[in-house]
């Protein structure tokens, strides 16, 4: 039993600093399978991000010809053949749900794939490290140069200037690409170059240049370790079967130098495969030791796997001392059983099924969504008017939505009380019983519709009424219901 400690005997550490100082990380260059995958994904992600705004898509005259465009002034979002209106943002909700579930699925199969390979923070930090390495040299040189900070030579000064210039250029390009998603890209590029773009574009480029430069150039792994909530969340989403970047301590321990291991093994004693070369630590972009087990700071980029494999090949030992694995297999190997990999298990099946279900719902909603719509609002004051011949008139505000890229002829029918007549203010239709209007492309039109019915004094107080709008050309129909009220 622990003895209770009196408050006066408690030890306080009052003298320590308020926060931990950042330990600068100097990741060493590495080559191997995962490095190649990372280069490939970086090229793909950045390529998509930087070039997508320039992809053209023909939507006909008068409509924007940019494949992916967020048109804020006109409240439209374009994605290739899809055009969304503000009231359809729920598609984004669906997309976010699918994205979240995909993240969960990736996590339950291969750990923090997102963190290690796809997260913008990782991708841009990786790119910034590549620039730094190219200019200042690899890990040791950079450490030496930083240590000799006091004696700043011209050459070193030029190096630093060049590095930050390139960083800023990348950052500027990042911000520049961002604003292109909100405007016609070629036009905006021309305006930006000739300094005729709207001030807002320059402000946003400035903001995103600053964030990219600061986050990828300076904060780096601090973002992952301290700022990002994902490392905390992902711990709840992983399980014992998920494959994570793992140091296989069953094979590696007890760490022994190469010479000593040969000696020990010659005597029939056991020695681990890990030779304690610290290459896994040297290449780590967050500066941790993977051999301490799974940890919050590990973004699971797999670079330590490449580093360890290189060493293992050199000394003629089996590769993948560090690899995608889990504790279950470590224990199985220790017990002399073969490892088991279970990518298909209830958790992954449920995630996949949920992704498929949400995807199917979205697809169905997208395919069957109405491109012609009608909303009806009954006049509130007065709700009903009695005319001189005793008949009753109700007025409605009818809003028609045409989501197609061309003008359409729309007929308006009203089903309700017997013998209703319909009049649209400002429209002298050639067919008085069935008013027709031309509905402009990609817009909404508000109409004032007067519905008159010859009703007796003792007629029902409220009669359901249905507005049907029909596209004469395509036969598309939309309808809305309301009530016809008597005074």
């Amino acid at each position, binding site marked *: 039993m622990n003895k209770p400690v009196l408050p006066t005997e408690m030890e306080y550490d009052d003298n320590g600093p308020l926060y931990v100082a950042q330990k600068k990380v100097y990741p060493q260059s590495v080559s191997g399978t995962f490095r190649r995958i990372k280069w490939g994904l970086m090229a793909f992600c950045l390529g998509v991000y930087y070039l997508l705004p320039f992809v053209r898509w023909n939507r006909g005259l008068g409509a924007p010809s940019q494949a992916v465009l967020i048109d804020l002034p006109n409240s439209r979002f374009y994605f290739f053949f899809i055009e969304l209106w503000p009231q359809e943002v729920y598609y984004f909700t669906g997309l976010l749900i699918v994205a979240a579930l995909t993240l969960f699925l990736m996590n339950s199969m291969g750990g923090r794939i997102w963190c290690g390979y796809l997260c913008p923070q990782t991708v841009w930090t990786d790119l910034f490290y590549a620039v730094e390495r190219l200019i200042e040299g690899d890990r040791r040189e950079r450490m030496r140069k930083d240590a000799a900070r006091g004696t700043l030579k011209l050459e070193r000064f030029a190096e630093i200037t060049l590095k930050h210039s390139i960083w800023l250029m990348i950052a500027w390009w990042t911000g520049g690409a961002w604003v292109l998603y909100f405007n016609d890209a070629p036009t905006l590029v021309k305006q930006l170059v000739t300094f005729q773009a709207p001030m807002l574009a320059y402000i946003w480029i400035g903001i995103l240049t600053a964030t990219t430069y600061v986050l990828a150039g300076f904060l780096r792994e601090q973002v992952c370790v301290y700022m990002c909530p994902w490392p905390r969340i992902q711990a709840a989403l992983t399980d014992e079967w998920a494959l994570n970047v793992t140091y296989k301590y069953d094979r590696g321990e007890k760490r022994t130098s190469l010479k000593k291991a040969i000696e020990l093994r010659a005597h029939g004693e056991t020695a681990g495969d890990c030779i304690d070369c610290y290459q896994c630590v040297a290449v780590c972009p967050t500066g941790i030791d993977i051999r301490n087990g799974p940890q919050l700071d590990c973004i699971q980029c797999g670079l330590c796997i490449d580093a360890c494999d290189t060493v293992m090949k050199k000394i003629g030992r089996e590769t993948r001392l560090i690899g995608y694995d889990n504790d279950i297999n470590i224990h199985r190997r220790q017990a002399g059983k073969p490892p088991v990999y279970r990518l298909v298990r209830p958790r992954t099946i449920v995630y996949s099924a949920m992704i498929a279900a949400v995807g199917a719902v979205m697809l169905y909603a997208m395919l069957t969504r109405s491109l012609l719509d009608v909303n009806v609002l009954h006049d509130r004051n007065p709700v009903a*008017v009695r*005319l001189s011949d005793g008949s009753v008139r109700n007025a409605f505000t009818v809003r028609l939505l045409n989501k197609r890229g061309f003008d359409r002829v729309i007929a308006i029918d009203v089903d309700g009380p017997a013998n209703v007549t319909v009049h649209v203010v400002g429209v002298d239709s050639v067919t008085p019983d069935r008013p027709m209007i031309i509905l402009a492309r990609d817009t909404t039109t508000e109409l004032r519709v007067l519905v008159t019915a010859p009703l007796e004094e003792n007629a029902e107080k409220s009669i359901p009424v249905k507005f049907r709008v029909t596209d004469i050309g395509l036969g598309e129909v939309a309808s809305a219901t309301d009530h016809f009220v008597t005074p």
Partner: protein
Amino acid sequence: MTEHSDFDQISGRTTTGHEWDGIKELNTPLPRWWVITFYLCIVWAFGYWIVYPAWPLVSGYTSGVLHYSSRADLAVELANLEKIRGDKMVALGAASLADIEKDPALLALARARGKTVFGDNCAPCHGSGAAGAKGFPNLNDDDWLWGGTLEQIMQTIQFGARSGHAKSHEGQMLAFGKDGTLKKEEIVTVANYVRSLSGLPTRPGYDAAAGAKIFADNCTVCHGDAGKGNQEVGAPNLTDKIWLYGSDEATIIETVTNGRAGVMPAWVGRLDPSTIKAMAVYVHSLGGGK
């Protein structure tokens, strides 16, 4: 700074020297940054007095070197609004009434403008939805005292009815009872005759022939032989279902006895021409327009 010499043994700190029933106040100085901020705020306040309106005077106030006034800001905003509206309202002023209704954009503008101005100027009598009240016509229906075409509506808005304006609509319901033109029994009879014109039930024992005769002798000049009314003089149609003051016998008797002469003010000169135009289109579009 005051020197504090009194020392409190228990806390090991100086006191302010203030004592209440043996309880002393410890000297707890404010943090330096707090004090500095406090003094800066005082300096800021002096700057504020100089720059902005601050002190009340006998008649007025110190206006400050910037001469800032939120009312002046409002005036600028309103002027900007008029500038923004300018082109559109000019287009509205230039278009003919019929063309405004045909053009969806102009119609929407006229209705929006008309609705606002109606709410500010007309709603007190006609109601915010233009549904009217006793003595104030409902503008949603198709019964018009002075005519329901766009031009006629605009005419009425511009010059009013019995408004005193030279171009105002004139004509009124005479006080047949008060003036002694008709006797009480005659008024009852003609009131029942008027009710019969629109199919309303009449009082038992009422003399239809006598009623017709009184009507023909006194009312047809304005209301017409068939009682259909006359928009030239604002005489209402007595054969329809719409009654400005009410269709019950007592109300009609009151109307015939005392007469009626409701007033619609003239708006010309009070509202600019394009606004009056917008209002005419708005009223016309409410539903009753001819």
